[in-house]
């Protein structure tokens, strides 16, 4: 009975994804002419993929590369900074600690327009607009990562280890670097994945700070293709190509998810114990 309820929701969850799969295999005529939730006789996936990667001189591959590069660099940086800051909040008492932590947490309430629009104006003054840095630099700020790392370090690193290091005369940073890989990796990995997904999914920031299509990530590029397909001004930009593009850009994340899910859920639960 309960399993049946979950199965209904499972169907709901999978329908849009399944639709992307079937739509990617159709000709544009079949997309409109055949039933949407099943395959048509004319299997057109290969042609759609060829179109996807050749339209506008293969710009789609560039978008994928951009997304990957932006997400990877900003997530590595964001997770590393969060690790150091989270460790400091978890294991030290210092002047201004409560105020700083409240400031970091309060940052989640700031509307994205309140942040991105001034960033746009500031970047335009220093000539950073429409460069990879315009995406990567703001994405290094990942306050939820600091929060998660703090909770994680409190759980995973006992004070005894740190005190033992102090007795041996090791410097504070040396104690941390001695711990890093053994104890802190699961927390680091969780924050890295969260920051990576956040950057991979980001739409508003690149929409504002990127102006030429060779700097777009997939989200902005596909949205523009979709807009021209819906207004009918796309010419050869067909609905099926947009669907094939969606399929290609969600597959890597879904695969990464399935492979890393054990790791990821473990980290999430570690982060939530205290909260």
């Amino acid at each position, binding site marked *: 009975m309960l399993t049946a309820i979950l199965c209904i929701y*499972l169907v709901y969850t999978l329908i849009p994804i399944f639709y992307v799969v079937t739509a990617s295999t159709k000709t544009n005529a079949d997309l409109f002419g055949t039933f949407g939730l099943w395959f048509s006789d004319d299997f057109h996936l290969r042609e759609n993929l060829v179109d996807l990667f050749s339209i506008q001189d293969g710009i789609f591959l560039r978008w994928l590369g951009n997304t990957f590069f932006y997400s990877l660099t900003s997530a590595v940086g964001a997770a590393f900074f969060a690790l150091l800051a989270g460790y400091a909040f978890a294991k030290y008492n*210092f002047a201004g600690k409560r105020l700083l932590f409240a400031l970091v947490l309060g940052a989640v309430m700031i509307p994205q327009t309140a942040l991105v629009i*001034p960033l746009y104006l500031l970047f335009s003054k220093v000539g950073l607009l429409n460069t990879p840095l315009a995406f990567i630099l703001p994405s290094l700020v990942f306050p939820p990562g600091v929060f998660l790392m703090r909770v994680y370090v409190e759980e995973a690193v006992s004070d005894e280890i740190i005190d033992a290091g102090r007795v041996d005369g090791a410097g504070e940073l040396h104690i941390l670097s001695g711990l890093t890989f053994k104890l802190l990796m699961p927390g680091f990995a969780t924050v890295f994945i969260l920051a990576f997904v956040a950057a991979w999914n980001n739409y508003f920031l690149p929409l504002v700070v990127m102006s030429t299509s060779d700097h777009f990530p997939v*989200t902005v590029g596909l949205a523009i293709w*979709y807009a021209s397909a819906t207004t009918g001004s796309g010419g050869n930009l067909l609905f099926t190509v947009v669907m094939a593009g*969606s399929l290609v850009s969600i597959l890597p994340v879904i695969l990464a*998810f399935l492979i890393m899910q054990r790791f990821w*859920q473990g980290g999430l639960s570690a982060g939530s*114990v205290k*909260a």
Partner: protein
Amino acid sequence: MTRSLAGHRPRVIIGKKMAPYVLLLPFMLVFVAFLIVPMIYAFNLSLYKTAMVGGTRFVGFDNYARAFVDPKFWSGVWLLVRFGFIQMPIMLSLALAFALILDSGLVYARGLFRVAFFLPYAVPAVIATLMWGYLYGPAYGPLSQIATFLSLPKPDFFSEGSILGSIANITIWEYTGYNMIIYFAALQAIPTDLEEASKMDGANAFTYAVRIKLPMIVPMIVVTVIFSIIGTLQLFSEPYLITNLARSVINSHFTPNYYAYTLAFTAQQYNYSAAISFMLGAVVAVFSYAFMLASNRGAR
């Protein structure tokens, strides 16, 4: 002797007093440069006004006074309040129910459900909106096809009355699994000795889940509600992307963020746009704080 000393790099030992500041430095540098500075800059912007004649001049809080009585701003806020009252209860109660079911261990294939329900979170909002935009499509969308096949009237997902529900559905699809995972993790962290005790008292799995486990994760529920309030009031991508499909109902001030975006990049009114963003920030803070007060009171 001198040689071996020179071979040793002088190690900088950071003491206990200095260490936290050194560790915080990298994060605080980017935090200040790309969050605090833009905020201050935006606030400063919001105190000026640029006119065709006379250039830019300081106007104090005039932009806020204008925003305070701007029906375009408040219509967006009101829309999101109505949206939130539909979307949040559905999403969070589904998430909670699924988490309790999966945690109780009464179903088969728990791992499969957990991963599958969480999957939409990995799909960018842009693509989720695209997918649902296709599914909603009046001419070719499968939902219309099914309605036609059953000789029912075609559903219109982009009418005045249905647009909120259509967008709510997209966000429910995106974030239910995410909230479920948070609840699930919190439930799993509850010590199992409680379960044995309640079994001895003769409680069945259902009463145990609802009477004992549910109250224990209330703090987590409060956190997710606050995050949902913040997320809801910042709604932008979903309505922005389906504007083409629903031209008659989605206007340029559909949500406050949409309004701020249009003001900045269509009308070039950066000053007023900044004021609108700060007004929204204030609204977010008021709603979050009001909810926290209410939940504290409820807890007593």
